[in-house]
């Protein structure tokens, strides 16, 4: 029951973060976002198993697209969300000795933006645009991945003072 309510709460928090991050001014490049919802994906990866994390990510993307997006933005966020989720899970399973939570967050953001650049190229049938934006997207991924990683790490430390104490699956 604790897990079930925590999952529901995490989807809600991720949705609210996705919605409100658009009001934080950032450089004016399409596709560059803070990716605050990624904090929730990170926490879910550390606290729940893969299936539960997948449910959280998929529901969050579907619900946010339903309320504020379009079918195209759904394809976009779903591909980015799933690719970064799978990538980060594989890293957690294999490389926690090499990477900390922050490194995994940076790689997750990189995978997210890479997937979106590829989807953009596929959707409009030309990679000339993606090629120009991709370097900016990579820099943005490193910066936002680092920031969300920092916040995520702080959350993981605070979680030891909540009923979720001791539920962490991987070292941070």
């Amino acid at each position, binding site marked *: 029951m604790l897990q079930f309510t925590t999952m529901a709460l995490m989807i809600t928090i991720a949705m609210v973060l996705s919605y409100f991050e658009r009001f934080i001014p950032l450089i004016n490049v399409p596709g560059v976002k803070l990716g605050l919802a990624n904090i929730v994906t990170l926490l879910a990866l550390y606290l729940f198993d893969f299936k539960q994390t997948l449910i959280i990510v998929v529901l969050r993307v579907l619900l946010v697209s339903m309320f504020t997006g379009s079918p195209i933005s759904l394809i976009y966020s779903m591909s980015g969300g799933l690719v970064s989720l799978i990538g980060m899970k594989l890293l957690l399973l294999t490389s926690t000795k090499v*990477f*900390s939570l922050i490194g995994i967050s940076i790689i997750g953001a990189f995978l997210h933006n890479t997937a979106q650049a590829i989807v*953009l190229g596929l959707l409009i049938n030309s990679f*000339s645009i993606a090629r120009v934006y991709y370097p900016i997207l990579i820099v943005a991924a490193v910066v936002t991945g680092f920031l969300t990683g920092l916040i995520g790490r702080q959350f993981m430390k605070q979680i030891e003072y909540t009923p979720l104490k001791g539920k962490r699956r991987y070292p941070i």
Partner: protein
Amino acid sequence: MKKMDVIVAILFLMIAVGLFGYNVAHREVGSFVEIAKNGQVVQVEPLAENQEIILEYGDQYNKILIENEVVTMVDANCRDQLCVHTAPLKTVGRAIVCLPHRVSVVIQANGTEPEVDGISE
């Protein structure tokens, strides 16, 4: 934070700088504007000619302005308005994308007229 975190971050930044350098080295002033809808090129216009292009598909509306060899999306009734806020274009490969309407405006070095009659064949 671990050492590899920093190494990976630096590696990503190096890839970005490398790609950016590649793009700059291959940047050239364009001569044609290619307008595509749903991935299909619908219109190719010379950059030298000042004109206003209006795309209307159903209730989806985009207004593109070519002026002094610079292209801007001046108006659109799309949801996010990202295309309208995109900076003006003049070099090859630069583009304005209106994802909600699946419209892209790309600068090309040289253009060929699209085969509009392809569908009716």
